């Protein structure tokens, strides 16, 4: 085995007093060998990002590496002073981040920010730098590099921004590239391109890549070696194939078991004549941005002439990338937004045509579960009140409503004693359960779930999905399930509609869609799913369709 380029040994990082635990990292050891893509994988709080920041010497104030070493080219990075460390950053170790929009300075051009690498570390003259920058941008396959160099970050697309970030990180051809969740904020097709780019550059230049991610699909796609972390400790380490297909540590096993498979489970076909719980009929929504005096009016077609039908008792998946209009559609269905055209029929009632007052009465029949477990619960109310809220609105006496809330807590698998606690006292998964209880409290027939698990760690995600499926069956719900994650969709949906630019491009039963996608876009989506060839090595399927 080649000698490691970077060797982390016994690294312990202490958190400031008053934090929820004393150490962020404990005795972490990790070697990075030239030419490898080493994935550090773990759930939130596992310390994977902290490890990267420790390498860069960019730990937050008050957070300190108390023990261990980070050997790089014969010296211990932990012992370098700030000036010496600055020479390592950027020149020897480049880094890219999760959110390319915020990771770039919004007020300066891309070219300027890339050029800064040369200005900070080399003596190159201005004209020389000006020549180098477009070349770098061309290297990461940005079309029209000269224009991109003059552009400001907000003028580029998300994928292009991340390419520019990569061009910047690799400007000085560093020995190591640290990529901290570089594709998490990107759409699946863009993610595939960026992963390909990283691999391409890595192969071409022989850079060692320390790749931090929470996504086993990405690991399967890109890793040569894997380190699995949990609660600041390394639990398993090894070659990618070994870890992915033959996990040893129970935690790794559990994590991999929680990854939904891309292969839809067999499920009964929906009869064509199946009664519809919800019908969406030629619905359109445009956002007009009106300038002063109506001068410049830019129109965005968020949802364009969409017609769908949700069979009673079934789960209709709506899949698409960001900007496809899937969330707008969800909000149109519950009339958080008013459609411009079209009808939304819940049984015999056209929700789209209801007055505000009449709509309020209808809300008990259709409810919504939101994406963000932090933003969807009012932090000022107790959990029990949140769940009881809908009942109280619809006329249940407060006392009875609160009692019912406790029952609902039990139903979604929470301790009924938790009704008196505030949302921030719950974990993300628990909060999502509260959100579910709130929606179920009023006894809806239709549930709109807008990316209900995409903010959750993979193990929690599996539990919440299980719960959702179980309750749907028990309570006889029909569900619209909005997601960007094809793996989740494959496991939970009976039928899937694929949306792009506000339009439904394809709609088919899940099995058919995955087996024989008809629309090129659907095919592109499926092809882009990271680790699509990897079948998680778990005998039994934990998620069962209805």
């Amino acid at each position: 085995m080649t000698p490691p380029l970077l060797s982390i040994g016994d690294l312990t990082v202490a958190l400031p007093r008053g934090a929820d635990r004393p150490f962020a990292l404990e005795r972490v050891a990790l070697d990075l060998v030239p030419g490898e893509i080493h994935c550090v994988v773990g759930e939130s709080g596992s310390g994977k990002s902290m490890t990267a920041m420790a390498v860069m010497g960019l730990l937050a104030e008050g957070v300190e590496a108390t023990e261990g070493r980070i050997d790089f080219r014969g010296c211990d990075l932990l012992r370098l002073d700030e000036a010496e460390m600055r020479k390592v950053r950027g020149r020897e170790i480049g880094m890219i981040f999760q959110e390319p929009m915020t990771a770039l300075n919004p007020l300066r051009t891309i070219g300027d920010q890339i050029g800064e690498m040369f200005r900070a570390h080399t003596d190159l003259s201005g004209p020389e730098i000006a020549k180098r920058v477009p070349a770098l941008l061309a290297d990461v396959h940005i079309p029209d590099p000269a224009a991109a160099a003059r552009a400001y970050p907000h003028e580029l697309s998300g994928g292009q921004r991340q390419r520019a970030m990569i061009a910047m990180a690799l400007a000085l051809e560093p020995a190591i590239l640290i990529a901290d969740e570089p594709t998490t904020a990107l759409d699946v097709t863009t993610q595939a391109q960026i992963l390909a780019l990283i691999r391409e550059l890595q192969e071409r230049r022989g850079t060692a890549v320390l790749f931090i991610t929470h996504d086993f699909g990405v690991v399967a796609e890109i890793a040569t070696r894997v380190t699995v972390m949990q609660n600041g400790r390394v639990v398993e380490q090894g070659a990618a194939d070994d870890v992915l297909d033959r996990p040893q540590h129970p935690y790794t096993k559990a994590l991999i078991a929680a990854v939904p498979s891309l292969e839809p489970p067999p499920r009964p076909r929906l009869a064509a004549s199946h009664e519809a719980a919800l019908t969406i009929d030629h619905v359109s929504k445009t956002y007009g941005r009106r300038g002063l005096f109506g001068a410049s009016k830019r129109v965005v077609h968020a949802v364009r002439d969409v017609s769908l039908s949700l069979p009673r008792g079934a789960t209709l998946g709506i899949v698409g990338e960001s900007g496809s209009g899937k969330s707008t559609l969800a909000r149109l269905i519950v009339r958080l937004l008013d459609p411009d055209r079209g009808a939304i029929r819940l049984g015999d009632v056209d929700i789209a045509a209801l007055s505000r007052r009449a709509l309020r009465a209808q809300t008990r029949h259709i409810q919504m579960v939101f994406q963000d477990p932090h933003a969807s619960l009012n932090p000022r109310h107790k959990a029990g009140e949140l769940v009881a809220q809908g009942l109280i609105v619809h006329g249940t006496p407060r006392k009875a409503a609160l009692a019912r809330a406790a029952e609902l807590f039990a139903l979604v698998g929470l301790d009924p004693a938790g009704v008196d606690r505030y949302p921030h006292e719950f974990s993300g998964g628990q909060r999502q359960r509260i959100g579910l209880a709130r929606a179920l409290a009023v006894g809806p027939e239709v549930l709109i779930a807008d990316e209900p698990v995409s903010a959750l760690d993979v193990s929690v995600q599996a539990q919440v999905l299980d719960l959702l499926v179980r309750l749907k069956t028990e309570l006889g719900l029909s569900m619209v399930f909005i997601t960007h994650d094809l793996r989740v969709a494959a496991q939970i949906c009976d039928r899937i509609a694929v949306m792009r630019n506000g339009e439904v491009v394809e709609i088919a039963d899940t099995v058919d869609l995955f087996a024989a996608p008809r629309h090129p876009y659907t095919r592109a989506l499926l092809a882009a799913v990271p680790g699509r060839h990897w079948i998680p090595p778990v005998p039994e399927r934990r998620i069962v369709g209805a």
Partner: protein
Amino acid sequence: MRIVLLALRRLAASLPTLLVLLVGLFVLLQFAPGDTVDALMAQMGGGDPAAADELRRFYGLDLSVPVRLGHYLWRLVQLDLGYSAIYGKPVAEVIVERLPPTLLLMGASLAFAFAGGLVLGVFAARKVGRWPDTVLSTLGLIFYATPSFWFGLMGIVLFAVDLGWVPAGGYEEIAGGKTGLARVLDVAWHLALPTLTLALIFLATYLRIMRASMLEVMTLDFVRTARAKGLSGMAVLTRHVLRNALLPMVTLIGLQAGTMLGGSVVVESVFALPGLGRLAYESVVQRDLNTLLGIVFVSALLVIVVNFLVDLLYARLDPRIVS
């Protein structure tokens, strides 16, 4: 061209605001006890009713309120601000005479408060939580909490009367016949203390905003990126943090334009400066309705212009605005 158009559009958009303001004040002041002739009589030390009636007729105060309001608005449409009863000249002339000291005072104070707030804010933010931060923030608050007239009067006693460094008041050496640079320096010398007095009140606000803005920007992702690029602390600060942190400061200028004019009422009175603030106070006391409305009109224009300039500056600082 686009800028002119934008300016005109802004102006047009604020016309209803301005109209509401002028009509509102006009009507409001009708409820005030006493009119401009009462004030004139007070200034004259009294007089007989015949003289007072003659004056009321002369100023058209014998007409009904709606008629006067109508006249006023009609003249305003023709860009005529009317005639000042107290000053005996067209209001436009009175205001133009009084504008330069106020603009200078406001401009200089603003520049001082902005620059001071910027430098000290950056310094405080870099030492956040440590004693220089605490001392600076507290000092800023103390200036902020000191009534400005007290500060001004004490400044006069110390710097003008006892030390003799600056004049006790006034805008320039009277009939000094100075021109060019000599006059500029003379005016600057006279405005030093008033500027300081007004600026110190606002310094605290700018300091506070700059400090908070710095702290916020320093937590943003691109600052981490800049550090990961191996930039020195100074380079991170000047090339990445500062410009982003400046944005709220620039916004604050626009928000404070109106407040500053209010603050100058007291400062101009203490330093015997012939400015708009004092004029405003005097025209309220003298019930000089035309002048007061004229000042409101002009200060509203001023605020609109300042905000327009702020927008331009903001657009230059932040490329996201243009698109």
